[in-house]
């Protein structure tokens, strides 16, 4: 794992999922060194947990257009 990786916490759900899919196909086909495999595995587990946490903790953000601005939406305003 020589390439620089974005810290898991900074990834969006979509990015994390894309990386997960990439890692999985690498693990399926590539037999790198044990260090690499363990690193991929750990990264994968961290990504899975990150995705799950994003899903669990996310709060829907709701805003609205006001002219050419996007402002906070207040229900029944």
């Amino acid at each position, binding site marked *: 794992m020589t390439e620089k990786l974005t810290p898991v916490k900074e990834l*969006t*759900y*979509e990015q994390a*999922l894309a990386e*997960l899919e990439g*890692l*999985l196909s690498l*693990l*399926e086909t590539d*037999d790198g060194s*044990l260090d690499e*495999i*363990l690193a*991929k*595995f750990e990264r*994968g*587990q961290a990504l*899975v*947990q990150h*995705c*799950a946490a*994003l*899903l*669990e903790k*996310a*709060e*829907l*953000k*709701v*805003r*609205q*257009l006001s002219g*050419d*601005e*996007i402002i906070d*939406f207040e*229900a*029944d*305003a």
Partner: protein
Amino acid sequence: MEQLSFLPPTAWSVTEVNRYLRDLFESDHNLGDLWVQGELSNVSRPRSGHLYFTLKDERATLRGVMWRSSVQRLGFTPNDGDAVEVHGSINIYEAGGQVQLYADTIKPLGTGALYQEFSRLKAKLEAEGLFAEERKRPLPRWPRRIGIVTSPTGAALRDMLNTLRRRYPLVEVVIAPSPVQGQEAPLKLAAGLLQINRVAKPDVILLARGGGSIEDLWAFNDERVAYAIAASAAPVITGVGHETDFTIADFVADLRAPTPTAAAELATPSREDLLPALAEIGQRFANYASIQINERRWQIGDLGHRLQRVSPLARIRSDRQRLDEIGQRAATLLRHRLQMQYSQFQANAQRLDDLNPHTVLGRGYAIVSHADGRTIRSAARVQPGDALNVRVSDGDFDVKVADTLRQSG
């Protein structure tokens, strides 16, 4: 009863006949589920809440009834003269002996001018290719921003937000508030679509409105709204009215949802599906990792076995044993040799002892010497009168030669 005995014994009661007819109707595949088109007349809705009507065309009439629970779901009030399509089943009303249409849905085909306008616009836009299948764009799998064009105060918005919150709260929602009915609505809806594309650049747009009468939904049959949907950069999902309502907007949209809630569902993946899918991905990771690790463990085991076969340890062990043997043999040899040398030494000491002249004297021999110490070995060396010394084992004494006799030997 006796006097009635002349009647054929096979006569049916009226109830039996009507029940038999009901069974026949119910066993018929077509009559259980059909759409009937016609004009409403004799519409009445008594206190029970059920709806009674007659459906007619130029040549025939059909009685119909709709139960209260279905009437409450109707998005409009049926009136005499309305052109409608009615869905339901045909059966017999046993008590009255009448064939009836039991309706569960009534779809207005429009009253006069509205219906004409709807048909005209639909044909025009269809001819322009706005409904073409190849215009429909795929929806994003993981939308990050969803635009919603609807009334900010409607139940439709609340339903959609609740659905998004439940299914996929990772998404960001931007609302373009717009009236959804009335004179202003078509222009405002079209402007909202245009503006939300330009300002918010959403991945997908929901254009929605809750249920209402056909007049209430009319803004969604406006060509300005239709063109705005067609011009939208983001794919548009419509969720207008109820399941049975079809608007022009629905035909132009990339996807038509039966309700606002359904539109929100079609736009997003569901958290309830995603979490198990994630768990499965995690499991796959664990599986691959353990497969790889096991493979290596096996390789290591194999190498270990092969290494053991060429290990110097075995040789070291056998060498060590040989060394022990050699050592023992050397020790035995040394001991043996020492013993031999000791025996030889003893023998030599004995021999030395044997050669000791003093030992010889003990056996009765004597050493005779001149006074000056010279040992006499020959009789010719002495003269009569010589003083000689005689040495025996325990001392010596002096003698005088009396005579010389002869030489022996």
